[in-house]
């Protein structure tokens, strides 16, 4: 039905990229950019980074499905989700530095609204496990005052909204094996090896 005489109107990528950049700027100025996101390439695959005006709110591995993660953010935070790299420049740079072994501590504002209750307690504790160190699930459970909740600690780690930045990868099994990880076991051992080297 669409006649090909409209081919001349075809939107070229250059124009769309320019318009998107303008929208990113305008949305920020007009304060209607609730969730900004971008992706970065790392040794553990493409990571999705998302931030609210309060701080970094989500880091997601490829295996989590970036589209699904963005849909979840639209659902739980705000549908005003826009690819807007500028807000994530600092987080992206620090993650790059981490993988280049030039950074051991992340200094970005975080927004932990996606973790509450018990899971939030676990997340808060994870932030205290230093670079290159490891703790067992049982140690974490004891540290937050729920020594029997070892499995629940594992679940909380699996739901860490900010993997890599909040080091759930530093929590391993009591027998020393690495255990499960939201980014897959290979990603976990890559991070542990990086920090041990």
């Amino acid at each position, binding site marked *: 039905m669409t006649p090909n005489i409209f081919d001349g109107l075809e*939107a070229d990528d250059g*124009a*769309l990229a320019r318009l998107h950049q*303008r*929208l990113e700027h305008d*949305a920020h100025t007009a304060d209607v950019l609730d969730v900004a996101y971008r992706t970065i390439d790392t040794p553990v695959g493409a990571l999705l980074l998302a931030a609210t005006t309060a701080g970094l709110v989500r880091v997601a591995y490829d295996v989590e499905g970036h589209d699904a993660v963005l849909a979840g953010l639209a659902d739980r935070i*705000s549908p*005003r989700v826009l690819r807007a790299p500028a807000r994530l420049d600092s987080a992206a740079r620090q993650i790059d530095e981490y993988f280049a072994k030039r950074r051991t501590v992340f200094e970005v504002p975080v927004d932990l609204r996606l973790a509450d209750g018990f899971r939030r307690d676990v997340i808060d504790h994870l932030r205290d496990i230093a670079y290159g160190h490891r703790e067992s699930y049982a140690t974490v459970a004891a540290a937050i005052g729920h020594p029997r909740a070892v499995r629940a600690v594992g679940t909380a780690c699996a739901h860490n909204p900010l993997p890599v930045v909040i080091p759930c990868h530093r929590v391993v099994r009591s027998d020393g094996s690495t255990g499960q990880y939201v980014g897959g076991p290979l990603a976990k051992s890559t991070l542990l090896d990086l920090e041990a080297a």
Partner: protein
Amino acid sequence: MAEHGATVLRVCRAVVGPVDAEDAWSETFLSALRAYPDLPAGANVEAWLVTIAHRRAVDVGRARSRRPVPTETLPDRPAAHADPAARDPDLWTALQRLPTKQRQAVAYHHIAGLPFAEIAELLGNSPDAARRAAADGLKTLRRHYREAETA
């Protein structure tokens, strides 16, 4: 929402021309971001964007008519902006020669795929009138466009 950016840009270009289209597009998406949380779940996002684009395009048209300088000739803009028109100047000329409602009906139906009932709501006429406007517009467009091509 981003996936509809290309369609909305084509509609804006057809309705307000290549120069003002980018302003209309930007204002459409900014308005959409503002209003997005109120959009009912399951709504047709593209149709909704086109209705916003229609209103923004009308605004851009009004702003243009207030400008003191006649706009018969395209104003000087960076090459990137003029690019789409340069690619197919005859199409732009043909579109600009259409009466406004015909141009809108053609764009909303043949580019955005809106049903005539919705186009009628935007244009303030009946679905039949919207259908006729799109058909007449397309016919005229084809004639002028072909003349230009064979000239």
